[in-house]
């Protein structure tokens, strides 16, 4: 009798959990990605590994950074311009484009970071110096930069710090992510941010592979998170790039699976697409992710696969 009771209880418990999944999944629209093409130049598709990809949402252009060369692609995925072949600008580690179309380059020279503001041709106009940083952020060494609504969002992926600055480099606010993630100082250097994205509302979305988790830091400083380790659909193996689409879904790259996982705004798992392979549309070791205003996503990969472009479908 007792055993039956316990078994019944476990079955009900599992049913409750499963029901939560199925109900949430049913409520959300299924999302699929249809492969369109790979970003290409006049000599064929890009073959770079692990490039950085950034979408200029104002002009629907896409920027790809690889080995200090910034390539710009038009709305059809064709390369239209490139700059940065030499190291005159320093080592470029990230790119952002402001509202006016100026290109902002996060660069390093002699271990010192700087933001170089360039015109649309990549010609330097000025340098943005960091100013008024509080003592706890004096050692801040950013390697990710996103422009959003007049602010620069800068992240140190291994230093686990986040700074929001204005367009002339003034410190606005900053976060030490270790305590926010309930980690200790000894963990600094053992945990890194992989995916980094800022949505239209100023919410910062980050993935942390060794925690098997994605975090959302809202503009008011509140932190929420989602994700569980595992290989089943909707679980995280090794998470990487993250973006939000026009429906406010979260799209998360899983490197190990070679897939894109979709979660709705309430973090319920919706769908997963992409498989590991070398056919068109397959993914090999995907990493970075960008999205444009028409819900096309851009996925960087290894295996000399360049950048694959998918269109999100919602039916």
């Amino acid at each position, binding site marked *: 009798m007792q055993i039956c009771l316990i078994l019944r*209880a476990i079955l009900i418990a599992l049913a409750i959990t499963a029901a939560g*999944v199925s109900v949430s999944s049913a409520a959300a629209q299924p999302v699929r990605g249809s492969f369109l093409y790979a970003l290409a130049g006049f000599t064929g598709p890009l073959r770079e590994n692990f490039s950085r990809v950034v979408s200029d949402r104002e002009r629907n252009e896409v920027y790809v950074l690889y080995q200090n060369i910034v390539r710009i692609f038009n709305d059809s995925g064709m390369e239209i311009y490139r700059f940065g072949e030499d*190291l005159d600008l320093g080592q470029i580690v990230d790119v952002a484009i402001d509202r006016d179309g100026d290109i902002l380059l996060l660069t390093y020279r002699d271990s010192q970071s700087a933001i170089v503001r360039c015109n649309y041709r990549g010609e330097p106009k000025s340098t943005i110096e960091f100013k008024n940083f509080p003592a706890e952020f004096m050692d801040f*060494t950013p390697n990710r930069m996103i422009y959003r609504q007049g602010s620069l969002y800068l992240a140190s992926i291994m230093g686990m710090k986040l700074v929001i600055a204005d367009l002339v480099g003034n410190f606005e606010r900053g976060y030490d992510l270790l305590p926010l993630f309930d980690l200790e100082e000894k963990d600094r250097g053992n945990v890194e941010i992989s995916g980094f994205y800022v949505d239209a509302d100023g919410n910062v979305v980050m993935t942390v592979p060794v925690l098997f*988790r994605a975090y959302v830091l809202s503009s008011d400083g509140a932190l929420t998170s*989602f994700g569980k380790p595992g290989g089943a659909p909707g679980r995280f193996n090794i998470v990487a790039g993250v973006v939000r689409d026009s429906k406010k879904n979260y799209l998360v790259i899983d490197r*190990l699976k070679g897939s894109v996982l979709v979660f709705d705004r309430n973090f319920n798992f919706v769908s997963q697409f992409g498989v590991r392979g070398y056919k068109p549309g397959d993914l090999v*070791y995907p990493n970075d992710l960008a999205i444009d205003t028409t819900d096309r996503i851009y996925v960087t990969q*290894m295996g000399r696969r360049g950048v694959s472009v998918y269109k999100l479908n919602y039916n």
Partner: protein
Amino acid sequence: MGVNRTESEVIAHNTGRQGFYDVISEGRLFMRGVKFGLVVLAAVLFTLALGGLAYAFHSGGVAECGGCHSMHSPKAGGSFLLVGGDASSACLTCHMHAGDTGPSSYHIATADADMPAGIAPLQRTPGGDFGWLRKSYTFTVRGTTSTEDGQTHGHNIVAVDTSFAADTANTTAPGGTFSSAQLGCQSCHEPHGGVRRLADGSYVRQSATAGGTTNPIIASGSYNNSPIPLAGQAVGGYRLLRGLGDNTQGVTFTGVAIAVAPSTYNRTEATTQTRVAYGATGINTWGNWCATCHPDMHSSGNYVHPVDQSLGSTVQIAYNAYVKTGDLTGTAATSFTSLVPFAENTGDIATLQAHAQNNDTYLNGPGSSDKVMCLSCHRAHASGWPEALRWNMEGEFMVYNSLYPGTDTTPTVPQFARGRLGAETQAAYYDRPVTKFGSYQRVLCNKCHAKD
């Protein structure tokens, strides 16, 4: 699903359910209801708890399974549900990351994207950055153009997804028969951490047979702040390296590799050195360990540089006195250089932990019974120089006219620059200022042999 918000909702839901039984029941029915509710609550919490957090990841042994294996991914392309094309690709899923701007903890290879021409690999781990395998240099000396192929710079692990390919020049391990096509991270590292160190300092392998028992690993044993296991416990062997009869790769590792690293080990040595304290006792020596794949490099019958042998007083005195070319004014208390490390003649972990520092608080040189090892001259992964050597052996000068050789710094002596910029040469020496060396510094064979 395991999201915070949903978890909270589920827990709240179950709390409410218990209240429902409060209202409708009395006596046994009430108690049964409470019990039932508690069991349900416990079951749900248990289900949710399966997805708990972890961040040390390997922790000296079996890591989070989902970090490497994907149980239900569509179209797994590799073996062992690794999904990736091979084991090394799975390792590099975490151990290589694009976007680094400098040494970054557990990253052991710089991504191609971060290494344009003229920029050296960024990682500074004691084992070296596999990115050097991608750095080929072309240069012309006295009218003859040569290429220093990147694959000469280290162990060419096969990681198909990340474009690391087998060595095309050495189809087997130099001095051995181990196939280069089989070489991967897993050739040396046991990803599940088979070797473990016990409370008494002895080493055992995980029992792989039914009925066997092994002390559980409580944490990594690789670092100067790693815990000392209590009775009944164990810590992982150094860097999850194979040992103690492990023959799963087609070769047999007889001993274990003993060492302790500072807890922060991937760092520039521009101001202070990163000292890994290597140990040696019995057959547990680094030469013996490397000889698993390179036996003829170790055989005493061959005409090769000795390894695993005591330095003796002559070399000890030379090492401790040698500061740089032309300068033999050094002392034993400050003579250590991480460009020429040695193995201490001990397996005592407490001693090695005290010596593994990254702040120059322990720079003592060797005693006469300390030992030369393969790693005295070579890096385990890769280096900026051919044969994974710690310094440039392709010419007589490491430093020329007080400058690191480079096509930009010393254009008149391309044989020393070998196609690199001066900054790349400095990076290969882990960013040491050139003043650490003589103005015309000769190769570091002289650290032990003091002929310059």
